[in-house]
């Protein structure tokens, strides 16, 4: 993984930069000693590590603005970081850059039940937002599996997903407003407690922008009334094709389950060995289908899904009779990643999205790749929205295995794009998938994206080295070649 070469001149000015930062962020908000910097050297993608120049932990929007203004004026790079749970290296530090931690922005500012929204600082965890409104019967819908640790600011930067996206949307569908600071220090507020932000949809653009466009300092999210009840079904199938067929027919019949998850045989066995959820072991695919809403609706739909499942050759079928049982059904799925960790010393989690009906074909080809690379793989699948997480099993202590796992992973993502899908469904591009962007996008597509980056950060100081395989200078991107044109398609009637 090649990061932009560190700027020696900036590193030589380290003491000067430390002094400037201490003038802006007093107290212990500037970290410079190596042992403490170590805590920030990587995020959830631990294969990549790098010590930052220094860490700065501002506590107010005004401080963030002054820090960015300074860095803008003195040409210092900045990497923003929430809780550091990114699985794509989005918060990987730079040796010549300030790591800007938003951890002190840890307060919920306003719970507004009449307007069904919460205004919060970005360093508040995903789960804490739900905890703040649960007493009133509300919750915050997006639920990435790291929700106990990951922060709302990071959720916005990565457009985090979860297991309820089909029905309740991703982060971007649940964010109403933002305050952000641009690299030049400008503080911009967009959206708010109202629906649809004004003018260009910058709220939408910021979601999933991976910390390259601005530093988020406040977020307004919408909250939803908690469904009255939820029940889960656990359905085993003799083949993956049957399970895929069942998913298509559930959705085709007009039912939108709150959660719809699929696991393949290796994933089922790993999860069952790990948490003893009571999963059937003699099936090739397992579907967890959760239906939520009023009791009358849930009961009605359970009967319909049962009929569809039996029609699709379901081998086993159980319906949760209590919340404890429902939690048990989910326990295996939610522990699938750590469970895979018991199958091999290391695993590498991939994150492509595919059109749902391509699942049997994609899993067959992943199995072939698994043989080719000599590495095992277990698959868990957000079947409702097509987001596939193959877990590639390897041993980093065996020479060459990490490289083989990475190659295997790249092949899987190429396959996802080939069948009409995308490189990443919820983990982000970061450094991990940066060099694969050209598989999905051509040069014109990527140039247009980079021009948007230029509109926010013309010197490319904010989180450089992430998302884009090539760094172009904005001046070069802005050039236009205009050819003296002829009236186009002259044979077409005009009036």
């Amino acid at each position, binding site marked *: 993984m090649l990061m932009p070469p560190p700027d020696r001149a900036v590193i030589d000015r380290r003491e000067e930069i430390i002094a400037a930062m201490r003038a802006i962020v007093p107290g212990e908000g500037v970290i410079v000693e190596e042992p403490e910097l170590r805590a920030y050297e990587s995020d959830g993608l631990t294969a990549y590590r790098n010590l930052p120049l220094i860490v700065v932990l501002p506590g107010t929007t005004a401080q963030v603005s002054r820090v960015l203004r300074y860095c803008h004026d003195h040409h210092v790079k900045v990497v923003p970081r929430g809780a550091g749970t990114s699985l794509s290296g989005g918060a990987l530090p730079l040796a010549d850059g300030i790591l800007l931690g938003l951890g002190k922005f840890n307060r919920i500012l306003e719970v507004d039940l009449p307007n069904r929204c919460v205004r919060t600082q970005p360093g508040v965890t995903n789960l804490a937002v739900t905890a703040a409104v649960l007493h009133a019967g*509300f919750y915050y819908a997006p639920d990435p599996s790291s929700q106990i640790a990951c922060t709302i600011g990071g959720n916005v930067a990565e457009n985090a997903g979860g297991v309820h996206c089909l029905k309740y949307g991703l982060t971007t569908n649940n964010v109403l407003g933002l305050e952000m600071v641009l690299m030049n220090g400008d503080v911009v507020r967009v959206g708010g407690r109202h629906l*649809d932000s004004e003018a260009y949809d910058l709220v939408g*653009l910021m979601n999933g922008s991976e910390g390259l466009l601005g530093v988020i300092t406040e977020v307004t999210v919408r909250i939803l009334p908690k469904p009255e009840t939820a029940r889960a079904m656990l359905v085993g199938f003799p083949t993956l094709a049957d399970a895929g067929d069942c998913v298509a*027919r559930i959705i085709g019949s007009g039912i939108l389950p709150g959660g719809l998850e699929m696991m393949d045989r290796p994933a089922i066995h790993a999860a069952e060995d790990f948490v003893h959820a009571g999963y059937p072991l003699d099936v090739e695919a397992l579907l967890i289908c959760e239906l939520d809403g009023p009791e009358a609706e849930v009961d009605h739909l359970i009967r319909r899904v049962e009929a569809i499942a039996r029609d699709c050759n379901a081998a086993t079928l159980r319906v949760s009779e209590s919340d404890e049982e429902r939690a048990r059904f989910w326990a295996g799925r939610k522990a699938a990643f750590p469970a895979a960790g018991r199958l091999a010393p290391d695993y590498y989690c991939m994150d492509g999205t595919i059109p749902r009906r391509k699942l049997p074909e994609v899993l067959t080809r992943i199995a072939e790749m698994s043989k080719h690379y000599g590495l095992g793989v277990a698959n868990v699948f957000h079947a409702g929205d*097509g987001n596939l997480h193959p877990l590639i099993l390897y041993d980093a202590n065996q020479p060459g295995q990490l490289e083989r796992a990475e190659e295997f992973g790249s092949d899987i993502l190429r396959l996802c794009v080939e069948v009409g899908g995308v490189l990443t469904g919820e983990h982000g591009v970061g450094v991990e998938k940066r060099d694969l962007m050209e598989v999905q996008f051509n040069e014109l597509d990527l140039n247009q994206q980079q021009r948007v980056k230029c509109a926010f950060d013309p010197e490319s100081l904010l989180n450089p080295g992430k998302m884009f395989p090539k760094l172009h200078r904005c001046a070069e991107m802005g050039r236009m070649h*205009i050819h003296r044109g002829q009236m186009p398609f002259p044979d077409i009637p005009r009036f």
Partner: protein
Amino acid sequence: MTSLKPGTAEQVRDAVRWALSEEAPLTVVAAGTKRALGRPVQARHTLDVSGLAGIDLYEPEELVVSAAPGTPLAEIEAALAGHNQQLAFEPPDLGPLLGAASAEPERAAVPPDTPPSAPGRGRGRKTKAGAAAAPPAPPGPTLGGIVACNLSGPRRIKAGAARDHLLGLEGVSGRGDAFKTGGRVFKNVTGYDLSKLMTGSYGTLAVFTRLTLKVLPRPELERTVLLLGLDDAAAVRALTAALQTPCEVAGAAHLPAAAAARSGVPEVAGAGAAVTAIRVEGFGPSVAYRCDRLMDLLRGAGELDELDSDASAAFWREVRDVHPFVAGDRTVWRLSVAPSDGPAVAAAAGGDGAEHILDWGGGLVWLALPPADDAGAGRVRAALAGRDGHATLIRAPEPVRAAVEVFQPQAAPLAALTARLKDSFDPRRILNPGRMYAGV
């Protein structure tokens, strides 16, 4: 004035490149039902994309549809209805309100006090009586126009806006580059979400050549609970109470008495009072249960009534298309605010001769004002001062839209960023220049 009517994406690109070389800005249109929306564009030529039409991919089980921008919305909705699916954000037809080409031209001629004769008909389908009297109906809105303006209907509160349903697009930037963004799958974080940026950009950044949207199941059943005789504040309290339940309310609107009297739905027009409406939709047993629960909740708030499926559908089409303000020549504003601010903002922005309706649980204020040279902008802008939200001038004569800000004025840093974003797509100001903001 030349009108270019490309038939392919390549021809769109060639047209934009030609305009660039001529330094001649383009007005981008499809059916043209919303030409009177936004600031007037000073452009020598028109780029008419209505020739780029047709659905090229529809996979019901994948919940996805792709179509060219000039595809009539009616065509897409008919195709989806064939599989019991829909565009859940409930795109409106603002043609009648804007006095432009519309699927239902006879509506524009209806005087305020006369309910239209057949409120139940769908977009693009005309009653026999209407067909005999009127010339052939021009097409209604196109998919491209709906996405370009990010227009969503009453279900916005539950299902999201147009921007939440656009999965990806292909287009031609003002640099003459054909590019794509997003994809055809719902869960996608690969690169910047330029689809969001395009939705609601009023054609100022790129010309769409292909749009891919998420579709959702059509509810099996809908019903609407009515509360009669509430003032604005009491109505928003009732709507808020309903929206705070897990009843998955899919429409929450309030029509003061004068607006309600103009409805074509007999139960609403005949109420003789303000009408507050709450829509519930979904599977049969669930709809029945949730309606009962809402009626229990609201029993003390006012007199209750109920609309069956057909009447409910007709009523929400009227709300969606701002039917109460279609007739006449009053200035019409659209304000998006925090729902609890709706009544106060409506009162402050209104004044003598003003009228309003509330949708989105109070968060969407449609305001009709007597015609004025400044469109009442001073008062409307002042009503929003210090509050979250924005106001857009939807209907006013062209000279008025040229003279006052149509969209919400922006603070300096945001205005500068908006201009830089325009630069990044359209540095020579070729596409719909000035449609949203002067110089953009």
